[in-house]
């Protein structure tokens, strides 16, 4: 009963304490205590939820709505001040529109005098989301303690504003908890705007020109989403509908279609689908924990969360198909665009947009089995992507580069970090790991609905195969005899990476359990039926996982006593050293190898341009069919 409220309030309190304390030695223990508290709280909620129906938290929401109204005005004023200071007229206009619309909607809601009786609800889906926020988010906060120390060291010209950084991070977590528990639309919209604010401030954290540019881009695009969302809220009021989200989903009333489409447009913006995807790429200038938390595991998931929540309304509608197509197009094109990237964070960013696209594709259909696959994707993607982002961040501080080409032989130089990254990457695209299980479920679900959607998925996932595998190859290709480099990584960072690596594997091992006790009950409660996976499929997945786990045993075989190490084949022109050869004019050359990026064939900007154009057209159709 008190846990949902506690989960919102604990990080909020921690945020303000961390802000007030300024530079302090207490930060590390405080962060650890607070994250442990809400991490355990979210776990408790998850396990408590298993055997029960939705947990309702009824109370009078009226005073809160007034509070949100004023807080919304404050946020609006703050953002407006920023826009004016940085001369961003368009952003200012959007802030004004959004704040004005929200204030008006708030006012109308009061007038209607029809408060939602149960503003907060915890069902299986929100419990899953809360566990992702609590555990993954908590781990990222802990990692940030070590990471930001390094970051400050690398950016020594900037003043130490880490108290603000952690304030925003915890404020964000509080808002995310609020967002997934909200059952009252005004609450949902309010927390949504808080996440936009946090994202804006965290992207602009470094305050240089590039950071501010990216921050304002994110702000503008997300405000467009926010305006769509508020318009949806107003429209429901105008049509005399209910603001109770569960009721909207359950009613099956066609009058909710257009408002829901507007909410889904906000979801598309937040989950960086075309035509909104530009902001997520820009957001990569933020410190890596921010990318891991907001732009991979949690905030962008809020975007798909809203679409999954309202998916039943989209079932068998043209609007739903359009949303699916936008997701599918985004999945295909961003997967192709990722091939051309050698900047590790950009690869991760594109792959994140792609996976969100796949989730949107599933969610837009509104079919029970596709929703099932979508939730599974949300879980596995959150875990694996958080690991990958954090690992890339840590590796970047060690190598001084985030270029994949510089990760040559990482497995020898930084074995622990390399193993974490290899597990993360395997988790993204290889059987029997999580994302592949989800992709399998997605394909099986989509083919029933529409033949065009799986075709996009099939081509897109072939592209993901290419860019992930070549990245793995880069890390494991090492000169023999290379030795580990002394490592001064913060111990907290290493612990978090180890836990997340274990989580990627554990989630795969317990996947049947996750499916049965977490996803099935939610899908059943909404649709009355759920995806059935054959027991045999689960067994074969487990066997494959076991095989992968046993594979390192083959390392015990060391080639026997007779093993003889030889130089690699360099067309017979080896020059004493195994990696030097005699080239033209008899001169000595070092050997070097680079990966394929196919930039000539898959140019990034045209791909994005066409994606944007195609999805803008689809959005126009979407609005057209929903009106």
């Amino acid at each position, binding site marked *: 009963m008190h846990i949902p409220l506690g989960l919102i309030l604990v990080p909020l309190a921690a945020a303000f304490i961390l802000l007030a304390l300024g530079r302090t030695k207490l930060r590390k223990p405080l962060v650890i205590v607070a994250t442990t508290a809400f991490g355990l709280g979210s776990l408790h909620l998850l396990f408590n939820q298993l055997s029960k129906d939705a947990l309702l938290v009824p109370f009078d929401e009226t005073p809160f709505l007034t509070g949100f109204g004023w807080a919304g005005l404050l946020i609006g004023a703050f953002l407006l001040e920023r826009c004016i200071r940085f001369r961003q007229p368009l952003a200012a206009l959007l802030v004004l529109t959004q704040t004005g619309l929200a204030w008006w909607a708030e006012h109308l809601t009061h007038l209607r005098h029809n408060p939602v009786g149960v503003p907060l609800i915890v069902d299986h889906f929100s419990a899953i989301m809360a566990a992702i926020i609590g555990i993954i988010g908590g781990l990222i906060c802990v990692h940030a303690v070590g990471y930001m120390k390094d970051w400050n060291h690398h950016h020594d010209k900037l003043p130490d504003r880490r108290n603000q950084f952690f304030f925003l991070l915890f404020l964000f977590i509080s808002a995310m908890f609020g967002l997934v528990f909200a059952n009252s639309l005004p609450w949902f919209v309010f927390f949504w705007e808080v996440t936009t604010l946090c994202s804006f401030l965290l992207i602009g954290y470094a305050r240089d020109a590039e950071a501010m540019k990216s921050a304002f881009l994110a702000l503008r695009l997300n405000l467009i989403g926010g305006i769509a969302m508020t318009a949806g809220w107003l429209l429901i009021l105008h049509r005399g509908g209910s603001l109770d989200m569960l009721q909207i989903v359950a009613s099956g009333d066609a009058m909710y279609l257009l408002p829901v489409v507007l909410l889904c447009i906000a979801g598309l913006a937040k989950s960086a689908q075309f035509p909104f995807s530009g902001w997520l790429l820009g957001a990569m200038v933020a410190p890596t924990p921010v990318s891991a938390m907001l732009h991979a595991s949690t905030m962008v998931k809020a975007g798909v969360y809203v679409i999954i929540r309202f998916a039943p309304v989209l079932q068998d509608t043209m609007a739903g198909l359009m949303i699916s197509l936008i997701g599918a197009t985004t999945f295909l094109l961003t997967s192709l665009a990722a091939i051309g990237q050698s900047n590790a964070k950009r690869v991760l960013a594109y792959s994140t947009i792609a996976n969100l696209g796949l989730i949107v594709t599933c969610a837009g259909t509104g079919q029970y089995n596709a929703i099932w696959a979508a939730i599974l994707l949300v879980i596995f993607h959150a875990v694996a992507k958080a690991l990958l982002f954090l690992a890339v961040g840590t590796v970047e501080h060690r190598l001084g580069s985030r270029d994949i080409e510089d990760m040559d032989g990482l497995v020898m130089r930084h074995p622990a970090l390399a193993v974490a990254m290899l597990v993360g990457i395997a988790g993204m695209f290889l059987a029997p790991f999580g994302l592949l299980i989800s992709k399998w479920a997605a394909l*099986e679900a989509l083919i029933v609905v529409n033949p065009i959607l*799986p075709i996009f998925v099939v081509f897109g996932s072939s592209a993901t195969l290419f860019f992930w595998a070549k990245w793995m190859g880069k890390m494991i290709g090492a000169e023999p005899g290379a030795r580990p480099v002394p490592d001064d990584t913060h111990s907290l960072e290493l612990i978090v990476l180890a836990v997340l690596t274990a989580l990627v594997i554990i989630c795969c091992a317990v996947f049947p359990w996750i499916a049965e006790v977490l996803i099935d009950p939610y899908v059943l409660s909404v649709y009355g039926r759920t995806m059935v996976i054959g027991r045999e499929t689960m067994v074969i997945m487990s066997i494959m996982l076991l095989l992968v786990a046993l594979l390192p045993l083959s390392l015990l075989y060391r080639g026997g006593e007779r093993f003889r190490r030889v130089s690699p084949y360099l067309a017979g022109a080896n020059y004493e050293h195994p990696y030097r050869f005699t080239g033209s004019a008899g001169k000595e050359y070092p050997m070097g190898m680079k990966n394929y990026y196919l930039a000539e064939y898959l140019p990034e900007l045209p791909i994005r341009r066409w994606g944007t154009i195609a999805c803008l057209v689809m959005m126009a159709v979407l609005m057209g069919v929903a009106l």
Partner: protein
Amino acid sequence: MTRNFLAGFAYLLLAPLVGALLAGLDRRITARMQGRRGPPILQPIYDVLKLLAKEPIGVRRHGHFFVFGHLVFMMAAGFEFFFGGDLLIVIFAFALASVFLVLGAYAAHSPFSHIGAERELLQMMAAEPILLLTAMGFYLANGSFRVEYIADHPTPALFLLPGIFAALAFILTIKLRKSPFDLSTSHHAHQEIVKGLTTEFSGLSLALVEIAHWYETIMLLGLFYLFLAPYPLAAVLLVAVVYGLEILLDNTSARMKWQWAMKSSWTTASLLGAINLIVLYYWMGTTP
């Protein structure tokens, strides 16, 4: 269930044998096409036995690690297929096996095997859509992703999936790494990438790669068998014709560039495979 396990284990035991004989036959026919006598049919087996007896040398001590994974998952994929399991899982396990081979080539850290690895990944990317579309097609045609149901379905899928069948035949060349798509490695070590992918594999590692390739060939041919599964004799004939054409093509064409491999296979996939799928979906929708 007993039947499933029998078929699965029969694959594990017999596939390398049949695969080796097929490879021997391939070499014999190839030789005849080139006006040579050719080696004995059992030559591939002699080769592998010889490889196993070779001195263990390598660029890295654990060079066999990934190759071992390659073989294990190739066997797992084939087992799942002949067991009658989910076709998508077969394809995913197959992809995992192929990725292991590529990683083995990367790990050798040698320029020729590196290029081979990159090209093999391109070939995988080229072929993967059609493999997955094939599974989609079988689902629409026979109502299941499970190989056993597809095989037991009374109407042969070939008539419903002609486009997908043609597309699959197209990428079989890529998967078998035969000319014109022997980009990542080939049987002829005198070419520009030497032995590509397998340059740094020797002895045990190379033997394992060969054995895995036998497993791979049988599983891929099994996929073709499925198209005519209700008529076993016709299905075997179909497989023989497909493989015979592969050999003919291998001997009559020169290696293409990877750009052409990518473009042609994705075009084929979308033109033949995807259109077949879409037409079938709406056609099945109208005929209950």
